[in-house]
């Protein structure tokens, strides 16, 4: 898989838990354009072990001078988000993949309902740029815990105008999914990204209301769970590998120095 060498050009604390990182290419050239909803996989070398974390690209897809990601700090993470928050500094170099889109807009959709929970707002940032550029009909529904956690709320309110709806949990706002999804014109597509419980609730509501699967799109933010350690045998290489609790099988194989041609395709699996 082709990769791009980047360095950190800027870091900004957006909320108490979210940091925004700006990448530029090491050779100073332009990045490829990308489509709304894309992510890149960032390789992080943490204590000699390579973590590959996918992050949504948040900037405008047509701005090729820099790529932007935001990372929420997770104390329960396998280390990626803590590393990004506590150790990554301006000027540091990384390898990232080319943009990959597993959460793309349905180009033939007549209307688009975007539902974001917390840090789940990130893939919508670039989608909104695409929707505005093409003049598409859309609504953004953004739910978060309390005012200080509403990263980008002010910015989005300005960009989206009356298409923007926000729900602040601490102020008692609730997103009425039944009312929102129960009254949409034919040809509407719905997209949800957020914590697992929220995604499940949205999908269940949509299915119960008879939404066709092809019109429901979701991306879930969840850390790969920490499991039990186990051993695997590699037939061809004739070696045995110990997979620790916090490592995936692939990571353990790579850590053992065995070449793997596995290409990243973590649908709905976002390491934090």
């Amino acid at each position, binding site marked *: 898989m*082709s990769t791009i060498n980047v360095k950190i050009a800027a870091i900004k604390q957006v909320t108490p838990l979210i940091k925004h990182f700006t990448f530029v290419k090491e050779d100073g050239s332009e990045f490829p*354009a*990308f489509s709304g909803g*894309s992510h890149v996989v960032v390789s992080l070398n943490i204590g000699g072990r390579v973590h590959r974390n996918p992050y949504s690209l948040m900037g405008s897809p047509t701005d090729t001078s820099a790529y932007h990601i935001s990372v929420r700090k997770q104390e329960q993470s396998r280390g990626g988000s803590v590393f990004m928050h506590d150790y990554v500094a301006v000027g540091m170099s990384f390898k990232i993949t080319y943009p990959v889109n597993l959460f*793309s807009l349905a180009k*033939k959709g007549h209307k688009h309902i975007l539902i974001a929970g917390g840090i789940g707002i990130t893939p919508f940032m670039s989608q909104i740029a695409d929707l505005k550029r*093409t003049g598409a009909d859309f609504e953004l529904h953004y739910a978060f815990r309390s005012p200080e956690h509403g990263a980008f709320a002010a910015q989005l309110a300005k960009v989206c105008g009356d298409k923007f709806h926000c729900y602040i949990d601490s102020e008692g706002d609730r997103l009425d999914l039944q009312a929102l999804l129960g009254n949409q014109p034919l040809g509407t597509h719905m997209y949800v990204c957020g914590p697992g419980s929220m995604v499940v609730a949205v999908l269940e509501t949509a299915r119960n209301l008879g939404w066709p699967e*092809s019109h429901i799109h979701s991306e879930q933010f969840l850390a790969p769970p920490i499991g039990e350690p186990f051993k695997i045998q590699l037939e061809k290489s004739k070696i045995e590998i110990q997979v620790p609790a916090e490592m995936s099988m692939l990571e353990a194989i790579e850590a053992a120095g065995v070449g793997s041609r596995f290409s990243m395709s973590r649908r709905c699996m976002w390491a934090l």
Partner: protein
Amino acid sequence: MALAFNEETFREDYTYRNSLSGIKRFPFPFPEDQYMYSVNIEPHTKGKQGSVFEFPLDVDEHYVAECNDKKITLEQDPGRYQALPHMMDAQWDFVELTMESLARDYPKHFSLHKKGSSWTWENKPLGIKDTFTFGDSSTLPMEPFEYMGRQVQGDFVLLDQRDETLYADAGIVTSQADWSLAFNVGMSWREWHGPVPRATELGVMDRALKFMLNLQLGSPVRRLNWTMTVNPRLDTSPENYPYWGGDRNAVNPDNVGDLVNLRVELQSLFRLPRSNAIVFSIRCYLISLKDIATIPRWAKRLHRVQKSMHPDLIEYKGMTKFHPMMVDWLAKFDDGAILEVGTQPE
């Protein structure tokens, strides 16, 4: 290095010819004595200097004549270009891919200058120079995909990815081996590939689709496909079957070496950045049996491949009428020597 472009035709008097170096760089598709349908996809990475794989988009001695032939076909049948409205981002992606590739890889013939979104494109072999605003179709003389589709060799189909499959939602198709864009536009992957014999039962098409859905930006792939065709004709479309279908009846044991051509398609697939669509490029290379016979290794190999061809494939590739004559003609170049695996000429 500057290319010399042939004056030649792909219809009527068929003056198409390959130079000696054109023969040597021909993408001969048979590494083994027996042909088996396979997906045979590999990364579309930089190949040897001078080979058809050297650059993402190959420009060769046939460039000008082929673009002229494409123009004639489009004049006679404008329906060979089609694009559904939601493919406009993919159209611009295609413009960027083709202009950047040609200007970077063939700077003697093509140039591209950007000032923000104002782009100036010059195509010296075809005498074209235009300044336009990237993203604004009204600043080009025609839709962006058609504009550049006319300036690159081969056929192009833009595939939209949705509902876990691919839809052929735009195309410029003037050199197809007996398939129709008008018939296929808007079709899904499975509808499109329904007729390929032996492929569906082998599960080949499902695996290929899965692979393509995961195609990554910056990591294009390619494969070779082939058929045999009578006369070096690019436009062997079903729409124009009356103009070429009958040519098969003209083949006899004396002219088979001149009339029958191996037609190789270099198929490449690129993920496009803004649209997340895929461009499927089908580039056609033609070589007569007589020219193949100048390369002893290829003549022997082609003889063995054709002699052992499955009857279903002979029929599917439209070779039934001349197949025995072709095998007989090739037999005299085959001394039975063992050939190592590989497609190289020597």
